[in-house]
């Protein structure tokens, strides 16, 4: 039953994304930036999905440390992996936009620098998991690192903002200047992207559960 709901949600999210992409392609180009502006319909929802994913990972990590229930560890790793995917996609789409509008792939602006740092922190989390053999220790250490990493994100953002204030800031377009029907498409994409993240997390969660079952069976076999 759970699988049917999850795959149903996945298909629905993919359908909304596909239909929305077609609809967005039909919208007129933005006056100043042209067609590349439309990347905002994907770029911002990707960051929103990444934000949701790492927040879920933080809550799951804290709950693991409190309850020692491995389901929370699985939730933490699943949502962090999905979060890193969205972070990567967000960085990539941002770079494509930057190349078109700024003429450069990358600039050491406050947002970009903190985004890259988030990516490095969560990639470090996944690397740490690879480096610890023992499952209980792996889950504990990963949860602790996740808490440290999440604590760092706001400090990083504000410190880099201070650090870069004397430099010219690139202008980000708020959603406030969006026409009404554009906002609608934007929100559809937002919902679809988050739904896609949920589906991927749940699928990854299932893998973790199966992995743990296999490990348990293997231990039982070795015990005899």
């Amino acid at each position: 039953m759970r699988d049917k709901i999850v795959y149903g949600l996945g298909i629905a999210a993919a359908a909304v994304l596909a239909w929305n992409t077609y609809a967005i392609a039909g919208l007129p180009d933005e006056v100043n930036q042209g067609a590349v502006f439309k990347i905002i319909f994907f770029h911002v929802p990707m960051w929103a999905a990444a934000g949701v994913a790492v927040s879920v990972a933080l809550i799951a990590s804290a709950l693991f440390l409190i309850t020692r229930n491995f389901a929370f560890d699985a939730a933490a790793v699943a949502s962090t992996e999905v979060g890193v995917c969205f972070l990567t996609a967000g960085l990539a789409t941002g770079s494509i936009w930057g190349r078109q509008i700024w003429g450069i792939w990358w600039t050491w602006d406050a947002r970009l620098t903190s985004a890259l740092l988030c990516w490095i922190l969560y990639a470090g989390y996944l690397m740490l998991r690879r480096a610890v053999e023992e499952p209980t220790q792996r889950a504990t250490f990963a949860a602790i690192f996740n808490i440290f990493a999440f604590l760092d994100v706001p400090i990083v953002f504000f410190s880099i903002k201070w650090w870069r204030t004397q430099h010219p800031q690139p202008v980000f377009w708020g959603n406030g200047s969006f026409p009404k029907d554009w906002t609608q498409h934007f929100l559809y994409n937002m919902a679809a992207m988050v739904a896609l993240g949920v589906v991927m997390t749940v699928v990854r969660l299932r893998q973790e559960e199966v992995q743990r079952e296999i490990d348990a069976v293997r231990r039982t076999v070795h015990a005899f």
Partner: protein
Amino acid sequence: MKSAERAPAPKGAAAFQILTIALKDLRSELRTKEAINASLAFALVILLMFSFAFDPEADTTREISGGLLWIVFAFAGTLILNRSFAREVPNDCLDGLIAAPVPGWVLFLGKAVANFALVMAVELVALPIFGIFYNVRWAQQFGELLGVLALATWGMTVIGTIFSALTVNIRLREVMLPMLTYPILVPALIGAMRLTAVLVMGKPIGGDDAAWLRLLVGFDAIYTAASLVLVETVLVG
């Protein structure tokens, strides 16, 4: 072991225990000098490498000196922090320490204090060497510079010590420690680089730069608190 004689700890015992652990670490380090020698030699090598990276005679050296110094300190400090718990692995010393009748946070603070002293010592040796090689008159604001060094080094030590405990038994320990600590240290390092550059140029901290001082204090407070809460989990599981 006369464990039967141990009475409930009197007041002030925690400070005494922290000091005991810190002195134990310092004593064992000063007898072998393995971490501190490696760290100092490494700092020297990086200082040498920098002279090829840019013109050491140029005036711009002073402006980027804060960044250079903290890269040296962060690299050299990692060598000391890496050894902090790794030193306890042979002969199962770590199990002995964990089994000792002291709380985890006392053990952590003892180790952190010892590491702080060692990293500060390396920094205070590397600083005049940097001044001589790069022709920088770094001591004009010595008191304030010492304060900034202490604040940023404490942040580095706290993060380094807790992650040293975390990485001690995992694969690729030497790589994982800087991989995990540097990204977390970024806010503190930016602040330290900024303030150090200002002070090395002979200017006092003022105006906007005071915000960086507050950032350093906040960073130290947040991560010291988080480490004290989580260290028991790291050590015992």
